[in-house]
């Protein structure tokens, strides 16, 4: 840290802030840095890639793109109903591909991106193999069985993978399994379909946060954020339905709410509280708080709007327009205040 005289006019608090690319860009916008100073500043913070950075990026990109194209090609090959290949050759192509990928993983190791990507491709090819199996032997299994078995078969690989993309594959498969289970086995509203999907995603979110906290390889937060959005989406559906049902006189019995969904608003309220508490105190994440705020705007607008529409539609539309503007203003003000408080305590 540079030595600085107490009488220096430079505002100490601001100079102690971390030199992030967005702050440097803001300084340029405010006329404090010119083009050359901004460019050099970004270079010094490591935001503008140098030769080594480009080499690293192109290496990652070529590996990922190559694996992606290869895998997509194999999937297309499987999807093509090729008549000339005998049954064993059809299985053989996929099994050999899986074996090769596992061998590459073993050879490269899971500490390198190449190994992780090879294992991910192997995990995805397991799904293609199961699909071919179902097609060849006409097992008649439902989609949820396919996705469930797929998830089960790759679980071990996911656990050892040290790769968030593979965890995301598992998360997607579990969601699909549950979704298709309700759709194909118990398809009516009498069952806790959205609540169970919410629970799955809430548990997944907890697991991601534990992994992010304990494992150095869990560096990105994209999966945590995506999972939170899905969790909110799942619980908002029965919550908004329950709010609309509060005023069922308006719609008659058209939107009868099955008893199982009556707890949704309570679950939602507890979840919002937990999200706000955790992501403002324990794991600072403004994105998560923004999502919580957005869900609150939806719930409050429905809560206000439903009786208003019953009272007078014209007044309701006018007031709801302003209600949303006021709520968004409050949400942004709160989020900015939180952000500034975090900035001050950096």
């Amino acid at each position, binding site marked *: *840290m*540079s030595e600085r005289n107490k009488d220096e006019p*430079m*505002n100490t*608090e*601001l100079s*102690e*802030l*971390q*030199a992030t690319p967005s702050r440097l860009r803001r300084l340029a*916008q*405010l006329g*404090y840095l010119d*083009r050359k100073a901004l*460019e*050099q*500043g970004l270079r010094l913070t*490591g*935001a*503008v*890639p140098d030769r080594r*950075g*480009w*080499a*690293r*990026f*192109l*290496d990652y990109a*070529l*590996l990922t*793109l*190559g*694996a992606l*194209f*290869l895998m*997509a*090609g*194999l999937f*297309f090959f499987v999807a*093509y109903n*090729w008549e000339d290949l005998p049954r064993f050759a059809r299985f053989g192509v996929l099994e050999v591909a899986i074996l090769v990928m596992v061998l590459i993983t073993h050879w490269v190791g899971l*500490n390198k991106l*190449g190994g992780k990507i090879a294992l991910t491709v192997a995990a995805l090819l397991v799904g293609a193999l199961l699909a071919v199996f179902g097609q060849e032997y006409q097992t008649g299994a439902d989609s949820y069985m396919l996705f469930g078995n797929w998830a089960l078969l790759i679980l071990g690989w996911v656990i050892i993978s040290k790769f968030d993309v593979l965890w995301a594959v598992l998360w997607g498969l579990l969601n699909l399994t549950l979704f298709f289970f309700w759709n194909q086995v118990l398809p009516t509203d009498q069952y806790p379909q959205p609540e169970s999907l919410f629970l799955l995603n809430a548990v997944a979110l907890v697991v991601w946060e534990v992994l992010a906290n304990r494992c150095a390889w869990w560096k990105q937060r*994209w999966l945590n954020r995506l999972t939170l959005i899905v969790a909110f989406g799942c619980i908002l559906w029965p919550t908004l339905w329950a709010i609309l049902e509060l005023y069922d006189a308006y719609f008659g019995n058209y939107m009868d709410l099955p008893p199982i969904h009556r707890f949704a608003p309570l679950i939602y309220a507890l979840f919002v509280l937990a999200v706000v508490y955790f992501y403002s105190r324990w794991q600072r994440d*403004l994105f998560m708080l923004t*999502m919580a705020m*957005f869900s609150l*705007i939806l719930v409050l607008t429905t809560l206000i709007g439903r009786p208003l529409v019953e009272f007078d539609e*014209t007044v309701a*539309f*006018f007031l*709801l*327009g302003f209600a*949303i*503007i006021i709520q968004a*203003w409050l*949400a*942004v003000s709160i*989020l900015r205040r939180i952000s500034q408080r975090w*900035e001050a305590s950096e």
Partner: protein
Amino acid sequence: MSTTPLRLGELLDQLAAQNLTPLPSERPLPEGLSGSNDAESSPWYIKALVGIAAWIAALFLGSFLGIAGFIDSSESMLICGAVLTVLAIVLKRLLRHSIFWGQLAFAAILAGQGLLIGGFGWQQSDVTMISLFVIGLEVLIFLLYPDTLQRMLSVLAIVGAIGAILYEQELQMWIHGLNTLLALLAVIVWQQEFRLLASRWSPFRAPLAYGLPLSLFGLCLLSLISFYEATDWWLSAAGLALVLLYLAYQILRELDRPLFSAMGLWAVGTVALLLIPAYATPGILAAVIVLLLGYWRANTLLMGLATVFLLFFLSAYYYNLEITLLNKSYILLGTGAVLLVVRLLFHRLIGERDMMVDE
């Protein structure tokens, strides 16, 4: 890259030592750095929240005007729309840093635009005329309404209107030229990012920098839709490949590597290779261009967008009707295998010492 986070004070000291800025002691940091009170300097997701809320509010306000009987003809729609648009512009320009008034102005300008376009569309049945009206209106709003999100929406609306004109005039072939132009403009805007940021054109940078790639993706989606009746998408792919080469040239120049070198030839070869799967799905090349732009300017949002669209266009390749599924699988398998070979070649070219060490 530094391992410990650099503080602003330290960084400014270093810049001052290189005579790029005055000594920090001579010039205090601007207070606006810690975040002004508007939503402009907020992260993208807060801007998105503001935008979505304004959209919903605009729908309610527009519905109110309809139900309350203020709108019962095309003339009343045009008058209400014009009043709302002008009010929004005045409000935003007068109270630029107020979140509340900014939010109200945004909802008003969205409702105003909707009413103006709806009113004009009610009077005119000619799609070309309506599209020209949209272009004129959005250019005005882009210039007069100082808001990043609205300006980005204006860019999208203008490109959409041009696409509609090309369709209506049966000039669908020009879509390939438009695709190439959009990609080129996106590259130029990102290339000039530092210059634009430090200039008086700074407010127009972000709307163009995000609006142009998003419009490009939007137009590439047309290659998957038969009703637009545009054919020969290889022309778009060829145009985008040229833009990709230009981008590669700029990056190589920045790294002091000439295009006519082993590395340059390698870059040309890789672009040519990517042309094969992108032959009828130019979105793949568009996504690669945006991905490179994102990394070039350390912009994770742009990289995230590019990744999502790359996966989408690759999946959409499945539905391409010009090639049989078996041939598509051969193309993808071949391209994937050659890309991995290209990676090995790349290792040889730059030498292992320049390669990263995996975590």
